[in-house]
């Protein structure tokens, strides 16, 4: 698999349910970030978790990071129709490799 692959590729849930998306990566990282993209629009930074952190919260978002498994998950609780979007994980390597490497994304659809 490539650096930064999300699964599932697509997810449809009922409004109010929780949505979980997973991301795997291959190389060592400094941090991992999650972004949201509404259809055809820009990338919105959601949350950043550093390699020495295991869990982070921001509002309805919860991110976990397991560096031993090279994986992360994004949990959106109490989903809303407005959460419908594509979600991408992106990793930042260490010094000398600071560019973002994006995953393939999960298309999340919230059914009202």
């Amino acid at each position, binding site marked *: 698999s490539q650096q930064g692959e999300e699964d599932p590729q697509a997810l449809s849930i009922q409004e109010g349910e929780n949505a979980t998306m997973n991301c795997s990566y291959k190389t060592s990282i400094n941090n991992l970030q999650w972004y949201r993209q509404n259809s055809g629009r820009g990338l919105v930074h959601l949350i950043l978790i550093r390699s020495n952190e295991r869990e982070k919260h921001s509002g309805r978002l919860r991110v976990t990071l397991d560096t031993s498994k090279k994986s992360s998950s994004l949990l959106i609780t109490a989903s809303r129709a407005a959460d419908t979007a594509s979600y991408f994980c992106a990793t930042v390597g260490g010094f000398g490799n600071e560019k*973002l490497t994006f995953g393939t994304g999960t298309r999340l659809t919230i059914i009202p």
Partner: protein
Amino acid sequence: EPEVTQTPSHQVTQMGQEVILRCVPISNHLYFYWYRQILGQKVEFLVSFYNNEISEKSEIFDDQFSVERPDGSNFTLKIRSTKLEDSAMYFCASSRDRGFSGYTFGSGTRLTVV
């Protein structure tokens, strides 16, 4: 909240023409980037820029591409002779610390080459 501004939001150009995509990064950021996303595909890194020079570029960023910071606020991406496969959404981003605290992306320029 500070924003990265990109113009135009949409540009249509004929194959072989030159295009310049413009970005105004956040004023106290020092690191600037261009990424692109071909429709339905991953977001891909093109180039990073710091201290008035390119710090890293991908294999996509060939001789047809160039970047410039012509003044204290603008950051531009030029494509010299556009090809059909250059059609994509181009995102500018900036960071104050090489991305270790995160990036701020602009809303993108959709480039359509016909």
